[in-house]
């Protein structure tokens, strides 16, 4: 790889050991992916996970003196103070989250603890070169904003934050952003939830290919686009998509394919979505809880749930995960009161895939998020997956 003088300085340890390790990793990545050179990044997001490996990596960097040049926003761990009020958190889990917070603070991260930074505090403009890890973030950055990021891991994104550079390869390059397969959506896409199914169904038919959607509604909500990307990337490692007439690099079909022909055309039918739905959901029955916000709900989604439960009583506990800003807004607007009165609550700064949810292990819940169900298999939770309205009805009845 061709490195600038400053980059060579980083690699030689001129900027300290931490920066040196980060640059070493990035040069190795550049070599692996045949990058010619590095480019500056202007934004980064690290999928903090509060797992031991995550903590180990970031502490290692901090101890080596690393400090981020481009402060990354970070994913949620869990809201210790909240969960200590409602359940028992082990000494070990407490210690881990406190160490995680401290390590990310010390490395110079922006402590957003939110998995939808692209809606809130870390929004790129068209064409900006960035490094985002987090499965729902990468497709949003690439597809919806037309900014550029590879499918980073937490580690590689942290390295980019530290050095302020990323190797130039993959989705940073024009030619790799072109659509590959035309996806003709024959199924009727009625709500944000259908985008979850669509995102899950497409990779069944084409792996690792960039899809170009036609015949979907042309004014999708941010939640719809978030859902689509999150599922595409979780189920199929697809960090970019085009929707003709919606995403900025797909003003027309030709634009999306950069003038080439599609490698393939697939259709997605009503039956495809139903099949996927059956596949991902656990069977119905008595439920113990409802859980939303994987990825974090935005204020419109919170408002929707709040209206549904207004003046009603839930049979099972309902949690909505959000950013702290969304919780604050929900409080100001009265939604939090409404939810709490019905027997629900908003949990901010918290991820689904964290030990704080232990009190729900072995139980069955409803959620609108396939991703949530996917990640919690290893934590032994069962999930019936439905759209939000059906989930709420189920939560009021206690079964589905």
């Amino acid at each position, binding site marked *: 790889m061709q490195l600038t003088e400053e980059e060579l300085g980083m690699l030689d340890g001129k900027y300290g050991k931490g920066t040196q390790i980060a640059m070493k990793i990035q040069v190795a990545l550049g*070599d692996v992916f045949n990058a010619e050179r590095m480019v500056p990044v202007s934004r980064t997001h690290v999928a903090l996970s509060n797992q031991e490996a995550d903590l180990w990596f970031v502490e290692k960097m901090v101890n080596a003196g690393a400090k981020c040049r481009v402060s990354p926003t970070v994913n949620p761990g869990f809201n210790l103070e909240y969960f200590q009020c409602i359940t028992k958190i082990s000494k070990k889990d407490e210690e881990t989250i406190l160490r995680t917070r401290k390590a990310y603070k010390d490395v110079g991260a922006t402590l957003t603890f939110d998995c939808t930074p692209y809606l809130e505090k870390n929004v790129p403009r068209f064409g900006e070169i960035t490094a985002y890890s987090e499965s729902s973030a990468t497709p949003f950055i690439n597809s919806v904003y037309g900014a550029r990021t590879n499918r980073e891991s937490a*580690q590689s994104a942290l390295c980019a934050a530290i050095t302020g550079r990323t190797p130039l390869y993959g989705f940073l390059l024009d030619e790799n952003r072109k659509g590959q397969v035309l996806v003709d959506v024959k199924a009727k896409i009625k709500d944000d939830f259908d985008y979850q199914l669509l995102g899950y169904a497409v990779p069944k038919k084409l792996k690792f290919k960039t899809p170009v959607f036609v015949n979907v509604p042309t004014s999708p909500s941010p939640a719809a686009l978030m859902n689509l990307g999150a599922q595409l990337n979780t189920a199929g490692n697809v960090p970019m998509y085009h929707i003709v007439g919606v995403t900025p690099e797909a003003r027309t079909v030709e634009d999306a394919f950069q003038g080439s022909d599609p490698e393939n055309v697939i259709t997605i039918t009503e039956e495809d979505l139903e099949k996927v739905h059956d596949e991902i959901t656990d069977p119905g029955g008595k439920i113990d809880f409802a859980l939303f916000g994987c990825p974090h709900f935005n204020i419109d989604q919170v408002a929707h749930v709040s209206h549904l439960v207004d003046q009603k009583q839930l049979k099972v506990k309902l949690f909505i995960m959000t950013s702290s800003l969304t919780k604050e807004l929900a409080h100001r607007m009265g939604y939090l009161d409404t939810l709490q009165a019905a027997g629900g609550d908003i949990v901010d700064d918290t991820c689904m895939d964290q030990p704080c949810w232990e009190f729900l292990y072995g139980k069955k819940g409803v959620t609108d998020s396939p991703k949530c169900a996917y990640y919690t298999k290893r934590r032994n939770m069962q999930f019936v997956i439905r759209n939000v309205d059906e989930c709420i009805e189920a939560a009021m009845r206690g079964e589905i």
Partner: protein
Amino acid sequence: MTETFACHKVSEGIIEGDILLSSDDLCFYLVDPKTGVVIEKNHSLEGQSIAGKILVFPSGKGSSVVQADGMYQLKMSGKGPKALIIKYPDTVLVASSIIMEMPVVDKVDEQFYQQVKNGDHVLLDATNGHLQIK
């Protein structure tokens, strides 16, 4: 006779050890950290231990979070592989191996793949980009 093959350094180091071949992609999270035994159902290595081996496999799989965690657990228990020879490394494998100081190479001569057998004793010089079957 000793054969030498060119390869490309991902993470530096020089190490000797026995080869374990996997035709399937690998998720380190589905390896028991206490024993190093692959527990993934229907995996070509199911039931075998990767501990102390030089592991040859096409690419990683699984989410980056579980992959990193799997590698870390194996490192901590000392039941991880000694080195990795990968066809298609990804960002987690690269970053984790460098920070764990485990030798890793990619872009190995095609001939190596044709000749190498399970249990071969290999000298891997990742730092200088070559490896020998002894």
